[in-house]
């Protein structure tokens, strides 16, 4: 399953979702490839690596997967006392990713490259940049499901609406992408703020069951970032780890295996 986390708004939790979900799926026993397609390279850092042009090399220089793929250390995501059963790989990113759109013109090139991994990895998880580019189109055409992490404020809603509109009109309708909007994930939800409660109710009314259970605010995510780890390793016995595990389990049940069962 190829999963993309996108929202045309920065700071909404795309990286947090992408890295923790990829790590959770690997923990369960799946072979997961995390692709850092954001020029900021934060998924790369959170996976314990230095920023590097892996994704650029793959897309522009025609590098082999074996040349650009890193195996993520279990230390980054292992729950103490619970051995990781799968494998997590990373294709790192850096500022060079921002120029991929200028140097490639084949919207389907990424999809074709990823087809090489069929049967080798179970899941591919994309972290994307907030600014919509040609590269987003290539990812939307290569991916199967889209998740939109969203903070509960108006600017985030604007980014979310733009993302949905663009994927539906440009890539699903015109290009025939099989991409499906699997979920909108309200991020850093704090129910003590009435404004967040009202905004959550608004998107639930507008998008119904597409809106998943919010991922509540937790300082543990910041702590994990500081330690370049996922919450599973940094804070395994906290509500943050509990909430992320629930998210991972739901993606596994409703999206990955749910699709296979339909």
């Amino acid at each position, binding site marked *: 399953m190829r999963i993309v986390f996108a929202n045309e708004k920065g700071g909404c939790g795309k990286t947090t979702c992408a890295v923790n979900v990829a790590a959770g799926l690997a923990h*369960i026993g799946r072979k997961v490839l995390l692709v850092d397609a954001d020029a900021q390279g934060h998924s790369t850092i959170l996976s314990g690596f230095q920023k590097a042009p892996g994704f650029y090399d793959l897309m522009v220089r025609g590098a082999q997967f074996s040349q650009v793929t890193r195996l993520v250390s279990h230390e980054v995501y292992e729950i103490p006392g619970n051995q990781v059963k799968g494998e997590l790989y990373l294709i790192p990113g850096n500022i060079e990713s921002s120029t991929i759109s200028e140097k490639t013109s084949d919207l389907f090139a990424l999809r074709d490259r990823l087809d090489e991994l069929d049967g080798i990895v179970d899941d591919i998880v994309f972290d994307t940049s907030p600014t919509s580019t040609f590269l987003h189109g290539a990812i939307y055409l290569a991916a199967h499901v889209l998740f939109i992490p969203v903070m509960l404020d108006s600017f985030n809603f604007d980014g979310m609406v733009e993302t949905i509109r663009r994927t539906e009109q440009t890539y699903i309708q015109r290009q025939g992408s099989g991409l499906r909007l699997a979920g909108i994930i309200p991020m850093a939800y704090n129910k003590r703020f009435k404004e967040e409660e009202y905004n959550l109710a608004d998107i639930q009314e507008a998008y119904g069951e597409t809106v998943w259970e919010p991922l509540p605010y937790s*300082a543990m995510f910041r702590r994990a970032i500081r330690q370049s780890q996922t919450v599973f390793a940094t804070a395994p*016995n906290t509500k943050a780890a509990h909430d992320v595990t*629930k998210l991972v389990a739901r993606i*596994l049940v409703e999206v990955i295996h749910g699709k296979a*069962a339909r």
Partner: protein
Amino acid sequence: MARQRVNSLSLAQRGQDESAGTLSTVQKELEHLDAGAIRRAVIEHGQSMVIGAFQFGRSGLQVTGAPSREQWESIGSTLLLMAHGGQWWIGDWLNIGERQWGKTYQDVAAQMGYKARTLKDWAYVARNVDSSIRIDELTFGHHQLIASMPQRDQVKWLRKAIENDWSISQMREFINPNPTPLLSSVDRFMGDLQAMERRYSKVGEGDRQQFVILLRQLLDRWESG
């Protein structure tokens, strides 16, 4: 680490002389605002207070005259001090009243129209967090989180809070990372998922729908604790 303290404003565990000194500090602050302001302050049964051109009520401030900019600034610095130290002052004041005259927070609540629970909390925190370990840069709420701990732990957590610049909610999360028994089962649930995933890979196409139902049940069971 900055540890400038509000000792001069804390009344806890101090003698009357020191309390008087503390009050005079506040008084000096107020007199500095506006000569004679204290004399003109009118206290109406704890419901409102007038200092110079400002009338302070329980839920708002009104201007009754034409204050100068200097008066506005001066009163503001005092208000900020009160906002930061206010809960401490009331807590310490309640404890002094109880120690010296047996006047309980319930008496005060009934007499002055405040919620007993709120006053009880303030008095509890002031009684249990010694003035010598309180940290100016942290709020009363930070101290409230550690009030029930032994003093050695109180010092440890307050130090961590100031060193890491924790908000109250961040501090709460670090102190109490496992607020419900459900959370301790994260690793167990992950283990269940691992086992299910192993079995799923061996299940034939025809049985997968049934298997997903089992997975959903596992998820539901876990979510409901």
